[in-house]
């Protein structure tokens, strides 16, 4: 498979998104709807706006005690008759799930939306084994039918218009073309109901887990995740190892914030706490429950104090809904299920710093994400930290310096800034040189070399023939 993270791809996909008027409208719409609303939701919490910092501390504490909490969670789940598996990487996670499927003779699977299963590439692996996999979240179902990738963490199909969905359904489900959302939803519902009833196995993610009670929490607004976890014989839940919190009290705060951050809701429509399989004398619930807890690079983040904070993330997507860059380039340019600011930090950490470098360089450091994050994660700080590791090289992350010319330019500039006489001389000679090169009146219309990016769409003011420092010298002192 070719690498989804090249600079060419990032640039090409960004360009493609920017020139897609309908996509631009959809992105602007989702940001306008959810961006400001989440802020209002945070301040409306009984704890007040400070709740974000409080949640940050809670998460930080959980992360610092992750080993203990995971053990407690696993013990409780096992005690309830469930099975817990710790997967070091994507491969282990996938093969564990495949083994469970095999053991239970699974032919068909229904899935609740889960980013972590995207991360490990579960669907492809199941399909390769001849298992029929159906996504049941409407957005995920649409992109599965279209053979595409999610472009938003909680609204995976925002890049598709209803007309496109209408055509897709007509083609794939054999219904008459319609662009009516209600009719399309009904059509998907009819198909998915059958899938639910027939499925041997349900696979979900996990929004949060609680060590004290030993349960995982799933939330959806379509009820599909609850059906996924209760109708089939076997339930397999995938969980990023950072998702656990210590107590029900912590869980309460984070869960409220998750709902606010994700969809500006007080509470998601369907919330389930799952602690194990259904008891024997129970009419409902699966007979087997497997919890697969995934590391896949997370311990590495944990081990680096500069990036540990990223594990506080609850994948709510609030940061996507305010990010100016995401608002233009959409999710696909990020080449990973994690897009937007969270993706810009987490994807390089998971996929390799050099490989996914454009994600962290291709952000403006505006800081809107930090403000929107329900757990107050300092994403801009980590973006800078990633850039630092990439600029100067870093052994722990096997990062190699990205650009010799840029480093040379920065070093040279730094040398001048610490040699004031040389700096002054350079400033004045730059001003004079520029007057020669750009003899024409008015601003510069074409810059050379790597600076040309600026003048593709913008002019640039010239360096003044009288910089401030010379005007200061000759100014009249006030009497």
């Amino acid at each position, binding site marked *: 498979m070719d690498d989804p993270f090249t600079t060419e791809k990032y640039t090409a996909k960004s360009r493609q998104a920017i020139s897609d008027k309908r996509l631009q409208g959809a992105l602007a719409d989702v940001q306008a709807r959810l961006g400001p609303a989440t802020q209002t939701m945070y301040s409306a919490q009984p704890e007040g706006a400070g709740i974000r910092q409080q949640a940050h501390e809670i998460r930080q504490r959980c992360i610092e005690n992750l080993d203990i909490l995971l053990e407690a969670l696993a013990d409780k789940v096992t005690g309830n008759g469930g099975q817990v598996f710790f997967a070091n990487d994507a491969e282990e996670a996938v093969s564990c799930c495949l083994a469970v499927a095999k053991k239970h003779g699974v032919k068909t699977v229904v899935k609740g939306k889960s980013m972590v299963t995207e991360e490990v590439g579960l669907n492809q692996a199941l399909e390769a084994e001849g298992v029929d996999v159906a996504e049941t979240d409407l957005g995920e179902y649409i992109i599965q039918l279209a053979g595409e990738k999610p472009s938003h963490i909680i609204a995976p199909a925002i890049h598709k218009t209803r007309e496109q969905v209408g055509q897709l359904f007509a083609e794939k489900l054999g219904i008459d073309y319609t662009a009516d959302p209600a009719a399309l939803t009904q059509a998907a519902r009819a198909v998915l109901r059958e899938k639910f009833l027939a499925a041997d196995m349900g696979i979900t993610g996990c929004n949060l887990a609680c060590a004290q009670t030993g349960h995982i929490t799933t939330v959806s607004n379509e009820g599909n995740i609850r059906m996924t976890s209760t109708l089939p014989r076997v339930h397999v839940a995938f969980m990023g190892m950072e998702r656990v919190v210590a107590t029900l009290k912590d869980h309460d705060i984070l869960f409220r914030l998750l709902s606010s951050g994700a969809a500006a809701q007080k509470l998601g429509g369907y919330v389930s706490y799952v602690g194990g399989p259904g008891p024997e004398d129970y009419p409902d619930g699966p007979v087997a429950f497997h919890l697969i807890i995934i590391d896949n690079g997370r311990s590495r983040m944990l081990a680096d104090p500069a990036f540990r904070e990223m594990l506080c993330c609850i994948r709510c997507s609030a940061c996507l809904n305010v990010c100016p860059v995401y608002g233009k380039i959409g999710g696909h340019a990020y080449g990973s299920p994690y897009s937007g600011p969270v993706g810009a930090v987490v994807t390089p950490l998971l996929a390799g710093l050099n490989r996914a470098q454009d994600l962290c360089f291709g952000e403006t450091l505006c800081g809107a994400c930090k403000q929107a994050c329900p757990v107050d994660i300092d994403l801009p700080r980590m973006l800078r930290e990633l*850039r630092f590791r990439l600029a100067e090289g870093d052994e722990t992350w096997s990062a190699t310096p990205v650009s010799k010319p840029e480093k040379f330019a920065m070093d040279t500039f730094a040398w001048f800034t610490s040699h004031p006489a040389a700096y002054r001389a350079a400033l004045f000679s730059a001003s004079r040189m520029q007057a020669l090169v750009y003899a024409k009146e008015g601003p510069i219309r074409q810059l050379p070399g790597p600076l040309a990016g*600026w003048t593709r*769409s913008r002019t640039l003011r010239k360096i003044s023939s009288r910089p401030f420092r010379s005007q200061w010298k000759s100014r009249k002192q006030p009497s």
Partner: protein
Amino acid sequence: MLPVFPEVTLFVQCMVDAMAPEAAMGMVRLFDRLGIATSFPEDQTCCGQPAFNAGYRTASRKSAMHFIQVFENAECIVCPSGSCVAMVRHHYLELFADDPHWLARAKKVGGNIFELTEFLVDVLHISDVGAAYQGTVTYHDSCHLLRSLGVGRQPRELLSHVRGLTLVEMAQSDRCCGFGGTFSIKYPDISTALVADKVERILETGADTVVGCDMGCLLNIEGYLTRMGHPVTVKHIAELLAP
């Protein structure tokens, strides 16, 4: 109330020094009018922000150490750029986190530096500087100024007292203009898309002038306005407060 400080030491951001001297001259005139003495240490260069944001911390530290040496004895430093103040006040702490000696010196300087409008309104408690400007003005919130320093109210307060000036807010004034330092050169497509949106918001207001407190953003906005031929004037707030 005046003068709180016997003297204000000017830090004129490298970009303002080179490309927008009139903004810094405006700041000087402003202090002259208020009867506040100013000084300008001529050895000042750059705070190190461009290198820092691009990841080049060794280079950035070099500039930052020089900055600290030049300014550490100043009691009160005022700068016409929010992002540079954020750099010195907040990011120096990150830059020197592993170096207790320089960290202590950085902390001292960081405690003495103010962005111009923040200094006028919060420290001097002046919101009317006696300025006049005939025109309709819209204000762009620069990201670091607003989010790292919490400065958004102060420039508006100053503008609201300028005689003849009508302030019209643009939609999403706090949305990034797409400058982002080296980002604007490395990712020109994205940067352009962002500044195009910003300019659209500016044009919607019908304002004849757009004002801000950070030259980086202003050069970006001005560059796009000029290229597109829109007759909107771009001004640093200091130019407008003391023409």
